[in-house]
């Protein structure tokens, strides 16, 4: 029995460190290779020793697929390929390939330079790792080897995020990575065709949430910014360099354009400029509006948003500043925050989640007096707002995607166990699809029904079609033919052709049967009576009385003979070929019932 085996090394009933092993028809694929933000020890990377204790990973894995550039999906890649050792192909989309090394380098810098970690991967390792990457286009079917093929679908979420279909023969698995079913200001919605995979591995971050329409949130955001700026206040928006930052930029940029505002917007430089550059390049990956208008103007070439300089923070008058990092724990955003916090006209908008212990988390939880380094106490008078702009599918979106792909089984990853439980129950109830949610290291085994493709000769098919094939094509039909198995190929051909191909002579198989009839008359007369009897019953068959006294029904021969010992009974010899088995057996049973009494 063929089967698909799935083992999450990370992201099983957990968020972060996405890494899922899939074995499908003898092929082993690793989906994503991420790091965990919550840990700083060995647990931050997936446990690759699960795959093999000794020996190179290359021998065990056929390919690695990276869904998008977020570090919890690609953070462990240099470690995995360079330090553990993997030389096989790594597949990702073009934008991911472009942006991934920037983020990895940034991650490395923070880990090594700031935290002073040793035994971490180096810049060179990142470069070497990226050399193993094979970039794919959307909807391009890539043959990894003779049997394994993969195909990318658009997933929204961040620039270049993709869902991947992995297919071997007739078995297939779809891995969604992170995706978004509602479009936002710069990206479209995830889309997949009805590919009916055996298994759909989907993220479930928001398994228990149904979100309100995006428009309200956007409107609120814009209104808050606009009002503050109108009253002469300054707005600080701490962001991470990629993803949401671009969305918010586009949002503000278009609003500024629409409303003809002149207040300056600044964006802290560095990483972001590089990232914006990539956004400019990968226009086909963005949403409809940006794609359609980029001929006139590339939306990422911001008119109103300028590069930020440290000195600008002290400028009088209103302004909006995007600054990194997003949780206000260090760097430029914190510096600006300290400068502006004292004025109640100003505002800080936190567009995302903040980890406990960071300044962002403190002010969001309502703390008004912050202790800074050096026993300094900072009083926060500025307004603090929280705006969630998350780009994951909500429960409805997940259901929608499952409905679109029509999989046989669903497997949930990248979410909390309790939330998954709910969604699992819903999927099983409403879609009637069996659903799994393995923990890390737990293996799910799915039996698949093996379908074997059989080639049919055109001649045979046409002959069968000619016999009045009605449009009900989905109804099973009986077909006579010969199955030839040759070099692990199956072919269905007509029996004549099979004989010819195999060089065999045709054998005739005949059944004969004796039927005893109580009849005192002569043989010829009996034959005649049989003839008339059959003629009257089998109206649509050709019944003939041959001159030698025998009767034929189609190709079935019936002869009457008188056994010597008993003149009162006659013996009918019925003989038919194998092909006429149905008619023959019917005839014998008919004759066994006896002939009707002759009208004497």
């Amino acid at each position, binding site marked *: 029995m063929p089967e698909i085996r799935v083992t999450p090394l990370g992201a099983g009933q957990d968020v972060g460190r996405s890494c899922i092993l899939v074995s499908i028809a003898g092929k082993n694929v690793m989906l994503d290779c991420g790091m965990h933000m919550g840990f700083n020890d060995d647990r931050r990377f997936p446990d690759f020793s699960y795959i093999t204790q000794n020996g190179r990973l290359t021998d065990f894995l056929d390919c690695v697929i990276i869904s998008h550039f977020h570090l919890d999906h690609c953070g462990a890649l240099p470690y995995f390929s360079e330090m553990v050792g993997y030389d096989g192909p790594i597949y990702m989309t073009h934008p991911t390939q472009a942006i991934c090394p920037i983020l990895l380098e940034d991650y490395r810098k923070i880990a090594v330079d700031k935290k002073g970690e040793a035994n971490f991967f180096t810049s060179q390792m990142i470069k070497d790792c990226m050399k193993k990457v094979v970039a794919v286009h959307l909807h391009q079917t890539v043959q990894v080897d003779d049997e394994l093929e993969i195909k990318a679908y658009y997933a929204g979420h961040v620039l270049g995020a993709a869902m991947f279909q992995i297919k071997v023969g007739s078995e297939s698995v779809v891995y969604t990575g992170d995706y978004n079913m*509602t*479009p936002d*200001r710069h990206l*479209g*919605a995830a*889309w*997949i*065709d*009805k590919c009916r995979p055996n298994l759909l591995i989907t993220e479930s971050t928001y398994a*228990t*949430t*149904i*979100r*309100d*329409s*995006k*428009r*309200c*949130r*956007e*409107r*609120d955001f*814009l*209104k808050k910014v*606009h009002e503050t700026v109108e009253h002469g206040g300054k707005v600080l928006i701490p962001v991470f360099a990629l993803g949401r930052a671009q969305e918010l930029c586009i949002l503000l940029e*278009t609003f500024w*354009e*629409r*409303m*003809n505002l002149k207040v300056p917007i600044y964006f802290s430089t560095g990483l972001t400029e590089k990232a914006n550059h990539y956004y400019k390049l990968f226009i086909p990956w963005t*949403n*409809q*509006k940006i794609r359609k208008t980029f001929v006139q103007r590339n939306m990422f070439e911001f008119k109103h948003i300028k590069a930020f300089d440290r000195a600008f923070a002290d400028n009088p008058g209103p302004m909006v500043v995007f600054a990194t990092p997003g949780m206000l724990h260090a760097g430029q955003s914190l510096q600006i925050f300290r400068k502006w916090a004292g004025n109640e006209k100003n505002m800080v908008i936190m567009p995302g989640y903040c980890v406990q212990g960071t300044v962002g988390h403190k002010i969001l939880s309502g703390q008004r007096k912050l202790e800074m380094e050096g026993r300094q106490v900072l009083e926060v008078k500025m307004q603090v707002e929280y705006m969630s702009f998350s780009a994951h599918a909500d*429960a*409805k979106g997940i*259901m*929608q995607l499952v*409905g*679109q792909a029509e999989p046989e089984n669903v497997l949930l990853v990248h979410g909390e166990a309790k*939330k998954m439980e*709910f969604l699992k*129950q*819903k999927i099983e109830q*409403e*879609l009637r699809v069996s659903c799994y949610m393995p923990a890390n290291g737990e293996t799910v085994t799915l039996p698949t029904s093996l379908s074997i493709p059989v080639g049919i000769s055109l001649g045979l098919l*046409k002959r069968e*079609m000619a016999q*009045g*094939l*009605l*449009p*009900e*094509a*989905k109804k099973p039909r009986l077909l006579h033919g010969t199955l030839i198995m040759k070099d692990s190929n199956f072919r269905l051909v007509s029996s004549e052709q099979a004989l010819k191909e195999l060089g065999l002579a045709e054998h005739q198989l005949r059944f004969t049967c004796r039927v005893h009839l109580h009849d005192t008359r002569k043989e010829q007369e009996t034959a005649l009576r049989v003839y008339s009897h059959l003629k009257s019953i089998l109206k649509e068959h050709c019944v003939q009385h041959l001159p030698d006294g025998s009767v034929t029904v189609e190709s079935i021969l019936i002869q009457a003979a008188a056994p010597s010992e008993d003149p009162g009974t006659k013996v009918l010899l019925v003989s038919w070929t194998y092909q006429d088995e149905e008619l023959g057996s019917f005839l014998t049973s008919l004759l066994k019932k006896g002939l009707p009494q002759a009208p004497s």
Partner: protein
Amino acid sequence: MAAHLKKRVYEEFTKVVQQQQEEIATKKLRLTKPSKSAALHIDLCKATSPADALQYLLQFARKPVEAESVEGVVRILLEHYYKENDPSVRLKIASLLGLLSKTTGFSPDCIMDDAINILQNEKSHQVLAQLLDTLLAIGTKLPENQAIQMRLVDVACQHLTDTSHGVRNKCLQLLGNLGSLEKSVTKDAEGLATRDVQKIIGDYFSDQDPRVRTAAIKAMLQLHERGLKLHQTIYNQACKLLSDDYEQVRSAAVQLIWVVSQLYPESIVPIPSSNEEIRLVDDAFGKICHMVSDGSWVVRVQAAKLLGSMEQVSSHFLEQTLDKKLMSDLRRKRTAHERAKELYSSGEFSSGRKWGDDAPKEEVDTGAVNLIESGACGAFVHGLEDEMYEVRIAAVEALCMLAQSSPSFAEKCLDFLVDMFNDEIEEVRLQSIHTMRKISNNITLREDQLDTVLAVLEDSSRDIREALHELLCCTNVSTKEGIHLALVELLKNLTKYPTDRDSIWKCLKFLGSRHPTLVLPLVPELLSTHPFFDTAEPDMDDPAYIAVLVLIFNAAKTCPTMPALFSDHTFRHYAYLRDSLSHLVPALRLPGRKLVSSAVSPSIISQEDPSQQFLQQSLERVYSLQHLDPQGAQELLEFTIRDLQRLGELQSELAGVADFSATYLRCQLLLIKALQEKLWNVAAPLYLKQSDLASAAAKQIMEETYKMEFMYSGVENKQVVIIHHMRLQAKALQLIVTARTTRGCGMFLSKMYFITDLPHLQDSFVDKLLDLMPRLMTSKPAEVVKILQTTLRQSAFLHLPLPEQIHKASATIIEPAGESDNPLRFTSGLVVALDVDATLEHVQDPQNTVKVQVLYPDGQAQMIHPKPADFRNPGPGRHRLITQVYLSHTAWTEPCQVEVRLLLSYNSSARIPKCPWMEGGEVSPQVETSIEGTIPFSKPVKVYIMPKPARR
């Protein structure tokens, strides 16, 4: 260009003449007829290879074939068809047969037998499909012939089992187009077996090829379009197709479901997997709603569009479309809309209708949450959030249509529409603002909603702002804070975009007159009056102050207590504004003041009837004209015209009618004057000088008649006839004048073709003329002139029946304002773009009729056709033209003014019905029957320009 045009005209002209010769010389035609088919025959015989033959056929197909020779050509084609072995040539022949059978005046029943015949022997699938197409062309050409239709349907049924999808497609198409509508007729006809076309087509809903499935659904829709009532059983079949793998099948199936739901809205269908039953239209609504979240955007657009026209759906289902139960971490969350509503709804915090409405976050029963509702849940929420703006627009349109038919739904969808005001695509924003305006009768805006609406006023797009002003004109606001907010935002808008001045004033006018009671408490604040102190008098020229006054005065119209709050200067300002901006400031009844308005104001309500009466009376008086002596008649006409003109100025509602009748009377006056001239009594050589006056009068009458015909909207056929009659008289006058002066006028009779357009009118010029027609035809020119002259003088004055609603087309150019002293400088030889902004009132089809004319000081005139996209339609009967006109000229030494004006172009052939009366007549219609021209209908605006010589 002109030369080219001329050539074209001549070409066409000569062409027409030749054809006529052919028609007259019938013998010649007969000679040419066989030659055409013979040529083809020879060509085809010459052809050595299939490729050659194909080339000949392709060449042949480029030329049209006359109806008479079609049959011959068809025979030859068929003959060749039998001999041809190459399928591509046969295919071309088959398609040619179809084309030929479409020729007007050719009855294709004679070739049907042959076509069916070759169909039976054809092996190639492509040719078969083409032949079926040909049969379809034949069948549609003969809609009356039942027997032929039956036969064709039979043929189609035979080939339905073909293995090629193309053939099956065509068969289904044939069935859809020709399948008989009534079974009973079928039975009578030749005893052919009754075929249930619907059943046959229905069988192919499950064909293996998606293209055939689509064709089957399309065929079914075609049957419906032709008036065949579809069976209800189709509904279930169609529902299955909604989950088809192919988008075109799903898209067609959605349409089919919609059709069935409109046919059987009230029948009951069971809900699968439960015992409940619901109305079919509700069920269908739910299914179509589900398709709004389909994977293919084509289907989504289709579904969203169709939702709008399902008005019979019950309100329960309708309201579900806007419902999306939110939760966060398995806790119920209220939507932002709900929260906003709670915040603002006065005092009512929980409606108590919904379970746990007021508890902010309670646990949701995990079993009760339904993630994919089968019903209509949240369809519009999804549609409005869609990735493709096409879907969003369709959803907004659907919302609009549904909200118009259901006030409660309108109230509910408001939040969503307001949200759409912030869409990223301008088209969507505009559409949702328009939608909101259309449903504004049913709704009252809450303050928070108003806030969002007003935020859009700062949009940099002029269209959006103006649409929003329109919306505010007809919006109901619930509180006085709302009015204040609206005023403040509008004033902000005014300072930011001063060009919006007129639009904002107009908006405030309506806002004021709609909410007098809400404005009342705001008056002291708005006028910044103080109970004890006199405040400074505001600047009268400040647009913002005028805006405030417009709001207040319009509110005061229906609120008599308000003027008591005004300070002295307010009254003065009122008098000034009433005079200068009379269209924005209404007449007020002011206490203790003898203003001009107080005299007018009591009559305002009661004036309509008397003025109407006055109009009628003065017109009736005119109709007694016939009995007066010429001098008296002239005076009467002059007085009446004067009266009418004054009336039109006073009463804007009657302006159209008054102007219209005045113009007509002016024509009559001119005519009478012309006929009064002495010249008619003098001998020919003596009146040479005086004739100027008569011909000028004739010319002016003609111009006026064109104005009457084309510048007024609402002119009915009755009036057109009278106008034409007047024009005919003018023409006759012209004719007489020219005939008498130039003598050599052999051709003038031909001008009389004009008579043909007029029906018989009692005692009129035409009537008499028709009586005299035989004489006119035979008599000499000089005599004709004499006859015409007497008839013209004897003819009676015709009553002009007044139409119900008549409006004069008018246009005002807002921009350029023509006030600037700074010339527009540009380098000669290059172009400068001049922004033109104008409002058009009561212009029908402005895209085709309105032109912009630029007159240069050297007399050179340039006519510009604005693009259709330059016209906006902000309200019924009103249009707005915002376009750019390109100016260019050679260098000037001084800056000089060019004139810009709008023209209304007309084409008389568009309106005159062709009459067959003339065709048999001897008079050849050589004069072109359509007269094109333009009428200027706006005041010219002067623009100062200065083309500088180019620097070298």
